[in-house]
């Protein structure tokens, strides 16, 4: 049986791992390659690296980092942050990334999803979808949650699937950095209405939150950052707990 995935997310700035509360107030949590390797050894099912300062001049640094990660780590990983073109994706996949995640660029130019799916296959195209409740409905937000868009979350997720996205990384700004739990309703809605897997993100604070997002949120994977980086929850303990709760987990 296909296991639910636990995915630590490493936010990268200038080659270092950082994680902020609601994406502001960044704290330093170490070297990404070393952290990634530790997580892989502890049983992480996958890793996500989000370059939160992806600027043109930094892109080369990111490609080098991706190469180092691929060299050292024997589980799959996704790279996101500032990816906007086929050339960007080509460089990252060639460096050894398994998947790339596109976010704001896809909102600006939805055809990018089609282009990437056609060129590299849906399996490596993850749509990063940041969402928040705006005027009483779930809408898509961009730029780390600062910019609201008129797009409705479910409609955009469906469109992305039709255009060829292979997976949705759904980050709820309601939850992000709060440790109050994942946003179960929107996660369940998207997972139920789509055929492609959904990674839930934003709000993980306790082991129970993971159980709830898998059982009630119907998530295929759950992502978290600071609780893992600062050892508030150890991945092995979390996976043991979920297994005991009868959730399909790889131990």
């Amino acid at each position, binding site marked *: 049986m296909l296991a639910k995935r636990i995915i630590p997310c490493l936010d990268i700035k200038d080659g270092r791992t950082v994680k902020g509360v609601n994406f502001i107030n960044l704290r330093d949590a170490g070297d990404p390659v070393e952290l990634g390797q530790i997580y892989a050894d502890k049983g992480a099912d996958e890793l996500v690296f989000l370059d939160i300062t992806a600027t043109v001049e930094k892109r080369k640094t990111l490609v080098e980092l991706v190469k180092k990660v691929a060299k050292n780590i024997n589980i799959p990983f996704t790279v996101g942050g500032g990816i906007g073109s086929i050339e960007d994706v080509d460089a990252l996949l060639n460096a050894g990334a398994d998947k790339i995640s596109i976010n704001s660029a896809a909102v600006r130019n939805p055809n990018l999803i089609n282009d990437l799916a056609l060129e590299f296959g849906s*399996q490596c195209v993850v749509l990063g979808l940041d969402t928040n409740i705006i005027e009483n409905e779930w809408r898509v937000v961009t730029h780390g949650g600062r910019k609201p868009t008129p797009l409705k979350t479910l409609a955009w997720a469906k469109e992305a699937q039709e255009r060829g996205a292979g997976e949705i990384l759904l980050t709820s700004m309601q939850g992000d950095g709060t440790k109050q739990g994942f946003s179960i309703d929107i996660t369940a809605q998207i997972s139920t209405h789509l*055929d492609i897997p959904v990674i839930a993100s934003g709000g993980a604070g306790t082991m129970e939150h993971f159980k709830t997002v898998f059982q009630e949120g119907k998530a295929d994977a759950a992502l978290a950052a600071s609780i893992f980086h600062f050892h508030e929850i150890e991945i092995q303990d979390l996976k043991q707990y979920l297994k005991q709760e009868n959730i399909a987990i790889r131990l």
Partner: protein
Amino acid sequence: MQLAIIDYNAGNVQSVLFALERLGIKGILTNDIDTIKNADKVIFPGVGEASTAMNYLKKYNLEDVLPNLTQPFLGICLGMQLMCKHSDENDTDCLGIFDLNVTKFPTHTDNQKFKVPQIGWNQLENPKSPLFKNIKEGDYAYFVHSFYVPKNDFSIANSTHSLEYCAALHRDNFYATQFHPEKSAKVGAQILKNFIEL
């Protein structure tokens, strides 16, 4: 040992090279026919879409070379699917090493929904072959695919995602895995090591 990795513009070959490197083997990335023929072992990776990949194989004149190789040969993911006779993915005629048809996963059974593509760690059922030395029933491997090879007489491991499907194939010198050993942590490293030691 000369280990050739077939280079035909089909995805994440770097990861295969790195995984071999971690086992102390330096693979040669190549589409040169003589290099491939003379290699001690051949790995045929692949990520992406079947018809595009077949076109690249044809472009490099590998279409008739690969099925006639005699050294241990390991297809991975799309590589495994291309070793079959036909894929429903854009109605593609493939290499025909295995007389099998590749078809798309259903997204529903009568009462349950299944995500397609299947992305993630799934369990190996009944693994049997020297390729799976030290691999246990229920060990997890990493899969990413929308199309699958049905269970068949050449299956050396199966797995289940809405239905029981073929996770690995073997006939003569030809081996193939639907999962990615290069991304399957310790289990995958063991399988690659087994292949190297065949």
